[in-house]
């Protein structure tokens, strides 16, 4: 236990960087997921195909390969990225692919007659989108997006592979340093502690997800008499 107490400042800084990275990538993911999610429900076939290809590509390539590629591949186009920059880009691309699926299933869950009624009332396409579809589609995707945030926090541990000084990397450094200095490895203790911290954060987030789901279905029951099913796209796992 001493080993953790002695290194608490380093772990704390790492944890803050992890949370920072997760928040920044959540913003990036959200932007990408709205773009590709909307493309996924567009009338144009080409747009739908592009969205599908994007989602499949980033979900099928192991995330770690994605991170390594962005980090080591960036110099090829003349850009040099620091570990955090590379991690932000690759996690946003990946989170965007998962988020696009959530946005798409949110729009698909809006009953067809809503769009048809809006058209019959003579609303313009952008008005249908903005006043009718988006408000109904975006509320139910809030719980899955908190799930995505928890997934992104877990994903940030991969940034350690390109040397970003986040939470897991600081733990690795503590283990390496102590092993070198004392000849005895505190890996069991330190990595066990790391897992516990991740657990506390992500378990609280999934509790929040459940709470939001419950509130949402109560709200819908009040308004419509029945609760619409909350979209549950195939969850990616990390």
């Amino acid at each position, binding site marked *: 236990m001493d080993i953790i107490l002695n290194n608490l400042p380093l772990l704390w800084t790492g944890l803050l960087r992890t949370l920072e990275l997760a928040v920044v990538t959540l913003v990036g993911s959200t932007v990408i997921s709205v773009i590709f999610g909307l493309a996924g429900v567009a009338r144009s076939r080409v747009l739908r195909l592009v969205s599908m290809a994007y989602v*499949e*590509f980033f979900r*099928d*390539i*192991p995330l*770690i*390969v994605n991170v*390594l*590629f962005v980090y*080591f*591949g960036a110099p*090829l*186009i*003349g850009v040099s990225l620091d570990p955090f920059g590379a991690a932000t880009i690759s996690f946003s691309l990946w989170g965007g692919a998962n988020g696009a699926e959530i946005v798409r299933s949110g729009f698909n869950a809006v009953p067809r007659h809503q769009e048809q009624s809006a058209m019959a009332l003579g609303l313009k396409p952008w008005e249908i989108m903005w006043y009718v579809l988006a408000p109904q589609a975006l509320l139910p995707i809030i719980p899955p997006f908190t799930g995505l945030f*928890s997934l992104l*926090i*877990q*994903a940030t*541990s*991969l940034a*350690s*592979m390109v040397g970003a000084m986040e939470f*897991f990397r600081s*733990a*690795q450094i503590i*283990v390496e340093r102590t092993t070198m200095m004392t000849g*005895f*490895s*505190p*890996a*069991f203790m330190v*990595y*066990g502690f*790391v*897992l516990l911290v*991740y*657990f506390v954060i*992500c*378990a609280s987030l*999934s509790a929040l997800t459940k709470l939001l789901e419950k509130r949402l279905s109560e709200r819908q029951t009040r308004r419509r008499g029945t609760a619409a099913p909350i979209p549950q796209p*195939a969850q*990616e*796992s*990390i």
Partner: protein
Amino acid sequence: MSYDFSLEYIFENAPLLLDGFLMTIWVSVISIAISVVIGVCGAAIRLLRIPVLSQLVAAYVHFIRSTPLLPQIFFIFYGLASIGIPLSSFWAGVLALSIWGGAYNVENVRGGFLAISKGLHEAAESLAFSPFHYLWLVAVPLGVRVSLPSMLNTAVSVLKNSAYLQAIGLAELTFVAMDKVSLEFRTLEMFAAIGVLYLGLVLTLSILVRELEKVLQRPFRP
């Protein structure tokens, strides 16, 4: 800045990549098999509500699903070694992936068990089936069938996540490629090669899952 993409370079290194590819498949297949066993046993424990064990399984599933895989791998490889249980990177990898995939499979199979209609449970009870008989003769054949697609999705994830094992030095596909990149700097060629291999593998499996879903749905369609 120009970069000449050389396809020959990929072919020159094909035997090396193939070795890595086979290692990826080998470690994944063993882990998937173990994780399926964990999944069925864990879900059975949850279904039968065996005291203590059932809560332990629930805690295990919750813990594994709420923590990232990479620290789990490090905990098993370095952590166990530091308290006197050294494992080779291969077996540490198998252990980590099996435990991880097993947690997801418990939920998959449990979902299948829960999908079985109440009527069947009541029928089994009225025929004086013991809980164990119900499990073996009703729940497993029907529940596993229902959960097969989601179990295959987990299997695909295990296969993909075997790439994490490069971090503990297992010579699988990603490791082999990264090793080459750090020596010869043919970044684009190597990543293109492993990208195509992973995409091919995962896409093939996903298409199979979709086909299987259709086949399994057949008896339930009007």
